């Protein structure tokens, strides 16, 4: 088959850029579009913003002294002057919850971030290097994970102290094992991708590949699991405080309040149990829901939409 002479001419050159009619949208923008489709996650963000505002801005509007014991007003039910009643030391429950919430959130965020950074780095290096080093690094993680988490925490906090800074470190350094396993798994898959080969072929070294190619491509996993580990840290701290090994009075956190409250559960002092419990549950739930939505956002933002 041959073409008529006039048809063998060059085709009209494809107008450059015609395939890219849409204006470029940044990755974050695309991610936000997916994220915002998840209504529950938006609610969770709202709840979290409210709780943060309540804890950090609340004390500016609602004044109360949470360090002075007032034995004339112990275990008062909610009423005038004390909207949520008082605890066994006569301290205002509402004010105490704001301050305790601050501590819980601070420790949770800081510990969660430590876990994320430590976990991602350790996992990326282990997965990328591979071989017996990887095997060794992972067996170390396995042995650490074979201890019950609460046992580790009890040990660390009773040996190294119960100050805020130490608690952040203690909780942070016991909650990165999960992240590291996930990141290592992803690193194993990413290091055999063509773009890592391409980079290696150009002469890139291990450090460059880990920081430019492996870590950015595990960011989804890392961020999602950071939100989970923040929730876990809040929970772990509550547990520690509940068994009396968390922050010591007059410092307080939500878990500590719950601990005190449950001592009086028999007397029907519900205001000492339900408010802090509800806030803890809301914080943990919100972070988990946001984590789920972030996972969707990170996964689909790479696809054509």
């Amino acid at each position, binding site marked *: *088959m*041959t073409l008529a002479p006039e*048809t063998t001419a060059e085709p009209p050159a494809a107008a450059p850029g015609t395939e*890219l009619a849409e204006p470029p949208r940044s990755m974050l923008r695309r991610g936000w579009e997916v994220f915002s489709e998840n209504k529950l996650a938006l609610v969770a963000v709202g709840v979290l913003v409210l709780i943060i505002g309540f804890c950090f801005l609340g004390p500016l509007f609602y004044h109360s002294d949470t360090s002075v014991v007032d034995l004339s007003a112990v275990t008062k039910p909610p009423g005038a002057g004390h909207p949520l009643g008082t605890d066994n030391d006569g301290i205002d429950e509402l004010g105490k919850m704001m301050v305790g919430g601050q501590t819980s959130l601070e420790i949770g965020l800081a510990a969660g971030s430590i876990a994320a950074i430590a976990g991602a780095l350790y996992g990326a290096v282990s997965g990328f290097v591979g071989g017996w080093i990887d095997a060794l690094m992972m067996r170390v993680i396995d042995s650490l994970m074979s201890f019950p988490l609460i046992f580790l925490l009890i040990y660390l906090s009773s040996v190294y102290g119960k100050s805020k800074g130490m608690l952040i470190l203690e909780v942070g350094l016991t909650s990165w094992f999960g992240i590291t396993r996930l990141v290592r798994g992803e690193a194993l898959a990413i290091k055999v991708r063509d773009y890592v080969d391409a980079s290696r072929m*150009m002469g890139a070294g291990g450090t460059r590949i880990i920081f430019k190619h492996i870590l950015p491509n595990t960011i989804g996993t890392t961020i999602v699991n950071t939100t989970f580990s923040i929730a876990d840290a809040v929970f772990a701290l509550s547990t520690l405080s509940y068994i009396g090994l968390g922050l010591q009075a007059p410092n307080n956190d939500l878990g500590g309040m719950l601990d005190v409250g449950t001592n009086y559960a028999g007397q029907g002092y519900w205001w000492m149990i339900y408010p802090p419990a509800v806030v803890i549950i809301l914080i943990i739930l919100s972070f988990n829901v946001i984590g789920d939505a972030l996972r969707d956002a990170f996964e689909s933002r790479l696809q054509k939409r």
Partner: protein
Amino acid sequence: MALLEVIGLRTEIRLKRSVVHALDGINLSVDAGETLGIVGESGCGKTMTAMSIMQLLPNGGTVVGGQIRLDGRDLLSLSPEEMDSVRGNDIGMIFQDPTTSLNPTMTIGRQISESVRIHRGASKKEAHERAVEALSLVGMPSPKQRALVYPHELSGGMRQRAMIAMALANEPKLLIADEPTTALDVTIQKQILELIDNLKQQLGMAVILVTHDLGVIAGRADKIAVMYAGKVVETTSTRALFANPRHPYTEALFASLPERSAESGERLYSIPGLPPDLTKPPAGCRFAARCRYATDECRTSEPPLAGTVEEHRFACFLPVGEPVYRTEAAPVAATAVATERVRVSRDSTLTEPLLRIEGLVKDYPVTAGLVLRRNVGSVSAVADVSLTVHQGETVGLVGESGCGKTTVGKLIVGLEKPTGGSLLFQDRDLAQAPRAERRHLRRDVQLMFQDSYAAMNPRMMVRSVMREPLDIHRVDSPAERDRRIREIFDLVGLPLSALDRYPHEFSGGQRQRVGLARALALRPKLIVADEPVSALDVSIQSQVLNLMRDLQGELGLSYLFISHDLSVIRYLSDRIGVMYLGKLVEIGPAESVYANPVHHYTRGLLDTIPVADPAVEAAKSSQGIAGELPSAIDPPSGCRFRTRCPAAQEICARVEPKLAPYGPDNHLAACHLPLRPAAAAAQEVAPALV
């Protein structure tokens, strides 16, 4: 009345925010004992047609109109339960990838008998007997034993046979084969296609063969429907379509095929632009935006599927070709051009050798045990390959998957370390040189990946992707690097706005351009191109091939072009090397290897590869290459091809043949019993010319 009649079929897929009008008024008919080929580029709706008939649409997909009549019964009016009894009983289906279509936890025999038990209510024993029968029907050796194995224990070709056996166990009236051989090697492809053909005749089935490969369709289909953007644009008998295409899209597809220009060496025709977005299909002819003949009428009103003759229908206002039903190519025009050979085969062997590979060996150890990794053997991926690439030359490496061609490429660019032999680039050893020098040498040798998308970090903008090689080698100042990137983008014909995009925003062809641009960033002398076009549609493939050719002329590049596709290799290469199971079995000037092969494997490969010309396909008598690629862990002694060679004799098993010259033009082959006699004067070939 035809066995299957599809009338005005319309299928839509509901997405979150839009509706894809995947099929819009498809009309097809297939008679018993007939093969209908559905051909088109990816995304044209050919698989969607098959899935609509089976009513196995993806999530959100629904048939919104039309009729599908099988033996006069409208499948669309059936209840889901009734449809279940049609599927797998009246209609059988073969999928593209047999690995994912078989359940890995069930034996082959049980999977086949399962459908027999469901549809025929057979007892376990009867069903198993039927399964064994079906397996022997599809040419599975020792079917009784094979019925008891799990899918992973079978090779790819055998798995596809098992799939076919499963589809045929209930003797369906219609067999739908959706890209049945795309995941298989050419030699296996031929065996499977032949099998489907034979079974069709034996059982009197109708077959719908869905494929993107014009070569496959030319040899196997009785009639063809060409699809574009959810519509049938042309339908007629196979011979008529190839001899006298009437729709400009069909014409353009044929003109994009590299084999059509291989002899002349002309630039390939490429269809500009991309298929339309089917969420908002264009008002007029859907091909108008990319058609070189399009007028205003084409853009505003839609041409009906009509034609001057009943047997040949097409949807175009301005048809090309001749308004007659013709099944033979126009004789005058064909000879006038075909005899005039424009292509001048450059004898590049006279220029400076750029890359010299000598006795290259790569073995991968096979280990056993989890803790103490004992070496229990080795996979011989590349065994003693010697090859030279000269300045400005294109050398093609061709062979089946597993023949070691990709490993050769990886060894050259330094992604793997050779077990033995040397890789001399401008007389410096690429593998042995000191680290600093090796780094420098690597700048001159770059790799172009098969899948450029996979070879770009999805979280990097194209600007960073392009800058990476320059940053790693700290070439010039940062400003100078940006200037160089702009210059290269100009060269490969990409808009500068593309720099601020992410890789996923590009089409396949554009990505391959970016991939080529990145390979060029360090101004290399040699580009190893590993299957650079095999993931692209024909029309896009031709754009990339043209570009590669243009750049070679402009920049004086050398290419080592690795592909399984002989027609692409032939179009682009000056010399062709044929590999089989780690060995280079034949190498010589492209036309000489193509027209006068010496090695039986080359001959077999040439016979096996489907050509988009029904006349050529019909004339092929050879059986291709029998059997399957043996394991490289324990390769056959002597000549590695002997186990599948039609001419093999006792000497082939004892003595390993060496490359020897055949003819004066450096045509070498390694065979004891060559297809033509060796060069009269057994002149020694200087190693530099190998």
